[in-house]
């Protein structure tokens, strides 16, 4: 493949795409380490205070958490289909897929908000609301980790929604012509998939930790 000026210093479009994807995965790896620290804290808490985690976990709503998992998995499907469409130059698939995924992201945040409100009313939020029904220190540690992990994840969902919506608008307005800019669509999708993968692990670690 001969190199066009736009692809320099790479040998061609394919080499450039490989480098772009590589760079994106390096960034995603750093995100894995960010959440990995929290996962390690959860694993430590579970190993050293097994009863406490099991005692506090049933207070989390497994059905709302499960619904959120289904929402994110479906949004990942829409993004994956959009990425396929981007390579074929199918603008409508990309716009519809990314817009749909962004809307599902908003649905995720709404469900999360409902959960947080429920937990606030039950006195589970550290420092806010009614007094905590949890007596033992390790149980509050588990709930604290739940709030930190899900809040950090929700922040990433918010960023993902902005990225997806921005890309959808860019494609719709032809600022991102396809299939020339299919790589951009692909990389934005990769971020969203990682947000999904992180939740795939958060769900059992938090919600399913019951005895």
């Amino acid at each position, binding site marked *: 493949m001969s190199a066009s000026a736009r692809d320099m210093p790479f040998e061609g479009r394919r080499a450039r795409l*490989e480098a772009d*994807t*590589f760079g994106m*995965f*390096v960034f*995603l*790896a750093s995100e*894995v*380490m960010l959440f*990995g*620290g929290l*996962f*390690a804290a959860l*694993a*430590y808490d*579970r*190993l*050293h205070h097994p009863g406490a985690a099991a005692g506090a976990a049933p207070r989390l709503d*497994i059905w709302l958490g*499960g619904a959120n*998992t*289904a929402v994110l*998995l*479906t949004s*990942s*499907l829409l*993004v*994956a*289909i959009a*990425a*396929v*469409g981007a390579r*074929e130059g*199918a603008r409508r698939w990309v716009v519809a897929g990314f817009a749909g995924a962004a809307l599902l992201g908003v649905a995720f945040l709404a469900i999360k908000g409902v959960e947080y409100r429920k937990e606030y009313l039950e006195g589970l939020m550290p420092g806010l609301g009614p007094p905590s029904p949890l007596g033992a220190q390790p149980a509050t540690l588990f709930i604290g980790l739940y709030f930190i992990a899900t809040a950090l994840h929700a922040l990433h969902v918010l960023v993902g929604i902005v990225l997806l919506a921005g890309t959808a608008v860019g494609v719709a307005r032809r600022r991102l012509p396809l299939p020339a800019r299919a790589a951009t669509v*692909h990389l934005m*999708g*990769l971020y969203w*998939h*990682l947000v*999904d*993968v992180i939740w*795939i*692990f958060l*769900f*059992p*670690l938090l919600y*399913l*930790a*019951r005895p």
Partner: protein
Amino acid sequence: MGAAITLRVLVWLGLMALLALTIGVTFAPLGAWRFPISLAIATVKAALVVWVFMELRAASGATRLVLVAALVALGLLMLLSGLDAAIRAV
């Protein structure tokens, strides 16, 4: 394009089935096995998303290595913290 989309829809169906299985496992009388089983199911789900949705199956070896490196680093983090806590005198 049709075949690629069909593949992704099939993977999605598998993911939803695994989600149902995860929730089912939570209510099943499996005792201490519940935690490792639900983590194993989560790993399969994540592997499907990474391999098909994130198209790691089409990516270069270097890119796949980045993910392996992240997992190794994470494993080290958990292993060494766990060791430290386990051999502590306090």
